[in-house]
């Protein structure tokens, strides 16, 4: 039916945008650019959630949309900017794996998730199968980012991208309850991450808590 067609196209479009934003995250070389890209992704996610709320006429999804709009697209980026200023973190992205390879890996992950999801969701609503594939790729890409980027900030962003993917999947799962609770719970996680970075003075990366002492503690060295 027409409406279904349109709703499908729009949802697909927005989902694709989220994924593109994800890939772009891998591509960025400068921290601020990363943050902005993330904000953009959050924006797209909010749009997706809003659209789903409209399509499935599930009002509670508007809450999710609101959360990601306000919290992720605005508060978090600002907070990150502030953190970078406050802790004087390097502005450039340290990569553990060259951008090019990372991009290729990202594409490979997208391929993998499509390969996995599309055949198995044959009888699911077309709406879900597309965005599910997209969501899964976003999740995997987020994880990839956490691994291949050294800065604390980029890793946090990676984590949040991963979580965007999850929210995307959640909202696009037709009539799934508890989405709000889940997104709230995740926002708490994210908040704690940022808090932790600030509180524990994690300047460079997750691995060492303090750059000042070289030898880091990893549990009973003998």
């Amino acid at each position, binding site marked *: 039916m027409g409406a279904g067609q349109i709703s499908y196209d729009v949802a697909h479009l927005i989902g694709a945008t989220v994924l593109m934003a994800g890939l772009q995250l891998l591509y960025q070389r400068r921290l601020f650019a990363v943050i902005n890209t993330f904000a953009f992704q959050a924006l797209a996610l909010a749009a997706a959630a809003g659209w789903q709320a409209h399509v499935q006429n599930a009002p509670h999804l508007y809450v999710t949309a609101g959360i990601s709009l306000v919290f992720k697209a605005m508060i978090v980026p600002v907070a990150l900017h502030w953190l970078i200023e406050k802790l004087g973190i390097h502005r450039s992205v340290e990569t*553990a794996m060259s951008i090019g390879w990372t991009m290729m890996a990202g594409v490979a*992950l997208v391929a*993998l998730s499509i*390969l*996995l999801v599309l*055949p*198995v969701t044959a009888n699911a609503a077309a709406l879900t199968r597309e965005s599910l594939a997209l969501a899964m790729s976003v999740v*995997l890409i987020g*994880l*990839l980012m*956490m*691994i291949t980027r*050294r800065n604390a900030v980029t*890793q946090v962003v990676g984590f949040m991208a991963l979580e965007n993917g999850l929210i995307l999947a959640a909202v696009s799962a037709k009539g799934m309850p508890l989405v709000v609770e889940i997104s709230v719970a995740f926002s708490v996680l994210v908040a704690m991450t940022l808090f932790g970075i600030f509180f524990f003075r994690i300047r460079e*990366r*997750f*691995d060492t808590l303090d750059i000042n002492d070289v030898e880091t503690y*990893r*549990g*009973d*060295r003998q």
Partner: protein
Amino acid sequence: MLIVASLSVLVLLSALAVVAGSREITHRLVHAGCAAASLGLLVAGLTHLGIGPGGSPSIVLPLGLPWMAAHFRLDNLSALFMVVVDLAAVAASIYGIGYCRHLPEVRRVTPFFPLFLFGMNAVLLADDAFMFLVAWEFMSLASWLMVLSDHKSAENRHAAVIYLIMAAFGTFCLLTSFGLMAGAGGTYTFAAMRQAELATIPAFLVVLTAVLGAGSKAGLVPLHVWLPLAHPAAPSHVSALMSGVMTKVALYGLIRILFDLHGDVPWEWGAALMVIGGASAVLGVLYALFQDDLKRLLAYSTVENVGVAVIGLGLGIAFKDAGEPALAALALVGGLYHIVNHSVFKTLLFLAAGAVISATGERRLSGLGGLLNRMPWTGTAALIGAAAISALPPLNGFVSEWLILQALFKGPGLPHWAMKFGVPVVGAMLALAGALAATCFVRAYGIAFLGRPRSLAAARADLHPTPASMRWTMAALALLCILLGAIPVTVTDALSAVVQPMTGLHFAVSADLGWPWLSPVSSTRGSYSGTMLVMVGTALFAIAVVLAHGLGTRRVRRADAWDCGHREDIPETQYTGQSFSQPLRRVFGTSVFLARETVEMPEPGERSPARLSVRMIDPVWVWLYDPIARAVNFIADRVNRMQFLTVRGYLLMMFSTLVFMLLVVAWRQQP
């Protein structure tokens, strides 16, 4: 009924020892109680043997695995071993009454001693795999704690840890064996296992793991390494039980699986067991020959005797598989007889060693000497024990070796060429082991009890009189050595009743010559009669005395030793254990233990003494255990690096796990 009572008494005793362990009287009380309880069990076992074949119905208690309770049963085999175990147990307990005062850490012994006895008896009574293993591990556990009783010495701790790990290895092996026999159904009762039909490979594995599991506990080469470490570390009356009895419980497990549960074991396994047994016998006694520590020497000789018994069992399997039940019965009777004997004289010898240690505080042969004059009781008992373990007629050790040899001499009759040629070799090994055992104990006894004391402690041994309880136990055991040797036929008849269900043939070991004549198979086969030997021997002895005294004088004059005219009173000039075994070390040591002698001569004019140092390495350690240890350490080092990665590293591991699994799913889902 009696059994249940005695067992529960044992448990209560250990509780008592825990509660009231601070008072010295408690320990003697507990040991006395143990004596009473094991006496009860001994009686139970004997009466059951007296009733004759046919096991009592299995008793079921609502314990253990919920869907199959706990089964207990007493049949002839277990009754026999019960007699073996509790005979030694009674002795050790009574001995303990007097001995426990000499222990440094008695509070770490008494609570576990009853549990140890309990465990061993429970193994014999168990009628399902679960209870069997529980009791089995229980036995190991209790003895481990007693090995650790004198835990201040690092050597003992080392011994203990190796012991427990080897015990766990054995348990895992037995678990495999039972698991395979029980099948996926999970009915672990022995009754069910007897019915089990096994395919070729599982059947093979069952026997293999049974041999490994029971063998590691019995101390068969090359799984014996823990034994000479652990047995000496425990207090002597416990060592006596561990060496004299616990190894027998292990053999019981072996017999139970190979002859009862599994049923038809192919002859190749018989051959394998004979070779293992032969190797254990020879290597064990060789090890023993070169020991300086009295208790370790005894422990190694346990390895030898277990080997001898296992030769008998292996032969039994071979004959049984070849359809020769009579000979199989003969071999088994020999093996079982040796098990009985060894439990008696090894217990006796360990108890004697305990008496020596508590009198002199010295375990090294090189610090002993001249004890027969100072400890006549212990000395005499030990002499009989040594003669018995050296397989000298008319004592018990000889009878069992004679039976095994008789069976062995029939071995070449087996249809397989491997046996035709193998059996003589095993026979040679057995003979060699026997002769070396005699040498070993001439050395041990001569150095420890004869000659002149090599240390002040040994010279003052008579200042610490041995308590009566210890003396009487040793005397009783010595008497038993003679008895079991003098009336072999009575014993063999009882044993053949035990063997009957295994070979399916009632078999009179005193075939047609009648009571005192031990003549297996047929009277023309060759026969032996300890009874007659004793009678005639004493007669001749009397005649000799009368002749010598009648024809000559009876005057005796005490004087200094002549010693070819070299008058000296430096005890150090005596032969020591080292020098005694030196010729044999030259003969065997160089090849078996890669022994190397190095002599450091001082420069001319220097006053320092010349030194002869001997280095021997234990091939089993060097070629089998060290590599394993090295491998484990190597891998552990590599793996340990994973403790020190960065969070990103860990995330990477997570990510790759995820992707890997996704790929697996993707691959498996291809239509």
